[in-house]
């Protein structure tokens, strides 16, 4: 009869399975631990806060992961068929209650702990005096608009959009406020200053994503989403599109440059001059 060959071969299979589970767990955890492929350093205070929450989550899930896989490895080896009789028990209510409550506290607690970082990104608005920059996504480029010396964004009209003639966001030149607006395919910001982003899209849904800012936000047609950040480390950071937007999705990228205040003033002057 088929399954009455009982213990035959079960030790080999049980041992192989247990060894594989342990090995898989150790190797997987090693690559997380050694940070072989990892986040780039964060350049904002919120970014560091998010990284700290990552660390907490890694710790908790890591412990659960190792315990569960090792527990499974132990059980398959220890309780392999050696001709013994299985112990009969149908459950244990105390244990059920204990591990239910323990996971509630652990998982929901972790979720509540993450609130702080999320609140800083989204519940709070940009600090007063923030520099507003409008981001427009379109297949397959980003455009960044600065309000210029008057501090006001001028009117835009869809029918004036013409990427080929150099008006990619459709600035209405009859509006005086739009005269000094600066539109650039890259974004430069001064370090240590609050920046307010106004994120929008002209055609389909895109997503503004900068790894070092730990920020990602969909640019949704018909909506304006506000985000804010304050970058402290000068440098060049790649901007990618993170929401599938069509065949050129992968090549919709740009560059964020964080520079010192004087460098930024200079960059701004150059843009204004080019705008004349």
């Amino acid at each position, binding site marked *: 009869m*088929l399954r009455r060959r009982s213990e035959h*071969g079960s030790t080999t299979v049980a041992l192989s399975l247990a060894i594989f589970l342990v090995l898989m767990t150790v190797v997987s955890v090693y690559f997380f631990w050694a940070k072989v492929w990892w*986040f780039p350093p964060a350049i904002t205070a919120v970014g560091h806060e998010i990284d700290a929450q990552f660390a907490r989550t890694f710790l*908790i899930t890591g412990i659960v992961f190792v315990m569960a*896989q090792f527990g499974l490895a132990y059980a398959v080896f220890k309780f392999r068929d050696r001709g013994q009789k299985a112990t009969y028990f149908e459950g244990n209510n105390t244990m059920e209650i204990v591990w239910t409550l323990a996971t509630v506290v652990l998982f929901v607690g972790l979720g509540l702990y993450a609130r702080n970082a999320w609140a800083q990104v989204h519940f709070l608005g940009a600090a007063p005096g923030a520099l507003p920059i409008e981001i427009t996504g379109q297949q397959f480029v980003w455009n960044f608009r600065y309000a210029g010396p008057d501090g006001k964004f001028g009117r835009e009209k869809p029918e004036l959009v013409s*990427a080929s003639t150099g008006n990619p966001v459709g600035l209405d030149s009859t509006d005086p406020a739009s005269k000094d607006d600066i539109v650039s395919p890259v974004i430069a910001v001064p370090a240590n200053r609050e920046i307010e982003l106004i994120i929008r899209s002209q055609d389909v849904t895109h997503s503004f994503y900068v790894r070092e800012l730990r920020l990602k936000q*969909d640019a949704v047609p018909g909506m304006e989403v506000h985000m804010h950040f304050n970058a402290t480390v000068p440098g060049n950071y790649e901007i990618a599109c*993170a929401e599938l937007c069509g065949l050129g999705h992968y090549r919709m990228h740009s560059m964020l440059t964080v520079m010192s205040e004087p460098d930024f003033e200079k960059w701004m002057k150059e843009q204004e001059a080019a705008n004349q």
Partner: protein
Amino acid sequence: MVTHENGGGGHGHHQAPTGFIRKYVFSIDHKVIGIQYLCLALFSVFVGMGLSLLMRLHLGWPNAHWSIFKGGLMTPEQYLALMTMHGTIMVFMVLTTAPQSGFGNYFLPIQIGAADMAFPVLNMLSFWTTMLSLLVMIAAFFVAGGAPIGGWTSYPPLSALGEMAGPGQGAGETLWIIGLAIFCGASLMGALNFITTLIDLRAKGMTLGRLPLTCWTWFVTAILGLLAFGVLLAACILLLLDRIAGTSFFVPAGLVITDQVVTWHKGGSPLLWQHLFWFFGHPEVYIAILPGMGVASHLLSTFSRKPVFGYRAMVGAICGIGFLGFCVWGHHMFISGMSPYSAFAFSILTMAIGVPSAIKTFNWLGTLWGGKIEFNCAMLFALGFVSLFVSGGLSGLFLAQPALDLYLHDGYFVVAHFHLIMGVAAIFGMFAGLYFWFPKMFGRFLNEGIGKVHFWLTFVGVYCIFMPMHYLGLAGHPRRYFDTTALEFLQKLQPVHVFISIAAFITIGAQLIFLFNFFWSLKAGKECKEENPWHATTLEWSIPSPPPFDNFGGVEPVVYHGPYEFSVPGAADDYIPQHLAPNLVKKA
């Protein structure tokens, strides 16, 4: 009890059809329909895998020339079409059909002691409607512009504006939506049938507390399907209207595509689609995985010769997952522009759904504990399921936190997460079920030796494919990228892509071994002459292998025992079948 004039549900006596067409094609026998669904899923899974093979070929070696592509290189739209169709076919035609409509159709009526589903003709109609839906979707490859490129989530406006939004977004996208709407119809019919069958057609003594956990999961999955597919159907109809009737449910005013103003749309909201889609989409994850949980619980108990640890807690967890599954869809939309306050609420609910999942894992370990484990292929896949469920589930704790999702969203970490849990774990549940039930379905065993090779290559393979994807995600790799060298920081991740591609080829190769085993065993596998080769307890093991047309030969079985009475103290055998009258149980 429900009986029907036409074909007869329940325990009504009906004659087995004799003609080929009525027997194998337009059959109303739930067993034949179950096998039809499994064949459809088997065909689809190889199509879906073939598409992923092409994607991995490209991702591993983006600049190499392959003669299968025109000009030697894949184009971005080809890549996105492969990706869209891979996701769609795998989610709908494999993960939704095989565990529920395939195995559920075959074994739910038998396990509850019924002669057929409640509505056999409706059952046949659901299968053929599903088949139609598959044909319509596959047709998308062959129309002008090719298959759609918008992903299986098909977000508008990309999916609503037609060809101007990109190649494949014309006729291909229209066919995709129609195919999906048809699929919704089929699933609704199936869900109604499952629910009615389970409620009305249980044999005498088959109380809810004696239902095998497989039946519990099929039941809850059917309820999820009934509530979720109706919403997706509505969403598909609205999207179709936006495309062909000039309505604007999902498209706002003032769009400009390549300098052309879209004047014929105004007032719609792209987020509305996302809410409707994910209101379906998240329960869909559980539609895919719940039956796998049922099969894993069933097999862990059977092959460790122990009752399921905490049966009631397991049923509670299944229902809890089913209920919470409808309260968490917003975690797919943390960065969509949705209110950050609702994001926070969705986040806490999502963390909470980890609790029933953890209960299940604890109980699986509790079931193994103190057991006498037999390592046949069915059991190996069930154990693999538990391991993969843990690995894939824990990454959900990261994605459930909006603050972390800011970084991980739409990246490879997400790809790793959902492939492990809803793709691979669910497929391990199906393999476990297939190795277990094959002798009952076909009267022959799948070959154990070949099966073990299949298991090991697949188990090691899927970990080698999907574990490294987490690292890509942590390094910030966005998903759905045709060119993995497009960004500077992606270039140093290329060796990981090469590794994943090689692992994928080996794993896909292992599925050919399975395919061989499947067909070879059908013809020449070891014969299963007995009713109950595994010494299992549930009702399908009380009837011949394969079962006769009306399952129980016109006699309604009576159930006396719970589903998992293994190694009961005082009994001579280490299992007590559910149908065995108490006075027939041999004493030790």
